[in-house]
C-alpha cells in the first residue's frame, strides 16, 4: 500500500503545480465541460461566484500557460469576452483529474 501511495505521489511530478488552486481547478473543470463552445466572463463570474480581481487574474494565468484562449464576441448586441479551453488545457485537466482520482481513491 505504501508503495502504491509513493508511486501515486511520484506521478504528481508530471502535473503542473500551478493548476492546483481552487479557483483554477474550478475554471478548468467548468470550461473543459463546454469544450470549443466556451463561456463568457460574466457567466463564469456569476456561476462560480468569484470576484472580478481573482477571476481576471486567474483567467490570465491560465491563458499565459496556454490552457485558455479568449476572444471578443457579440451577443444580442453586447460585446463580451469569451473564454475557451485549449487542447493543452483539456489534456492538463484530464491528467490532473485522473491523478486526483487516484490520489483520493475514487471509486474504491
Amino acid at each position: 500500500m505504501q508503495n502504491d501511495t509513493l508511486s501515486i505521489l511520484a506521478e504528481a511530478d508530471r502535473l503542473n503545480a500551478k493548476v492546483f488552486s481552487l479557483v483554477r481547478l474550478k475554471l478548468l473543470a467548468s470550461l473543459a465541460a463546454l469544450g470549443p463552445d466556451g463561456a463568457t466572463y460574466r457567466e463564469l463570474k456569476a456561476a462560480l461566484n468569484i470576484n472580478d480581481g481573482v477571476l481576471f487574474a486567474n483567467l490570465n494565468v491560465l491563458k499565459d500557460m496556454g490552457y485558455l484562449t479568449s476572444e471578443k464576441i457579440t451577443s444580442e448586441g453586447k460585446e463580451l469576452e469569451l473564454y475557451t479551453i485549449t487542447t493543452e488545457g483539456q489534456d492538463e485537466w484530464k491528467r490532473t483529474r485522473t491523478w486526483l482520482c487516484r490520489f483520493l481513491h475514487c471509486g474504491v
Partner: protein
Amino acid sequence: MDRRKKVIAFFKVLGFNFDISKFDDRLIAQKLVCLLEFRGIDLGYSCSLYVRGPYSPDLTQDLFAFTREFEEMETGARLTAEEKEAADDLGRIFGLKPVTLEVGATYGYYTVRQKSDPLEASRQVRRLKPFYSEAQVALGISKAKEYLFRPTRKDLEDLKKETAIWQRASLKSLEN
C-alpha cells in the same frame, strides 16, 4: 436514426438557420434542446447544469463534429404530432431570442428537473443570470411557465368555477 437528425428536424420546423460561428446561435441550439427535454421530448442529449446554465456537452460535440449537417439542415427525420406541437409552441412562445430562451431554460431546469418551487427557481435564475435585467428575467420565466406548464382539463374547470361568479355578475351588469 441518429439523434442529431431529429434535432436538425426541430431546427428546420423552427426556421432556425444555425451558424456555428455565432455565439448566440450555439446558445439558442442548446436552450432549444433543453427546453424540449423539460417539456418531455427527449432527444438523447441530456441537459445538466453548467456555468452556461442548462447545457448538453454531447450536443456541443455534435454541433462541432457535424457542423455542415446542422448548418445545411441535412436530415431525413420527421417530427411526430406531439413533437411538432412542442416545436410550434416553442417557436410561438419563445421565438429564437437568446436571452428569453436562456432564462426560460434555466427556470425550466429548476422547476422540472430539480422540482424547485417557483419562488426558489426564480431565485436561482437571478443568481445564475444576474447580468440580465429584471424585465428580461420576468419575461423569460413567464414564457417558461407558458411553455412547460400547460393547464390540465381539471385546472381549466377549476378556473371556470372560480371565475363563474364574476362572469355572471359582469353579464348581469351588461343586461342592466
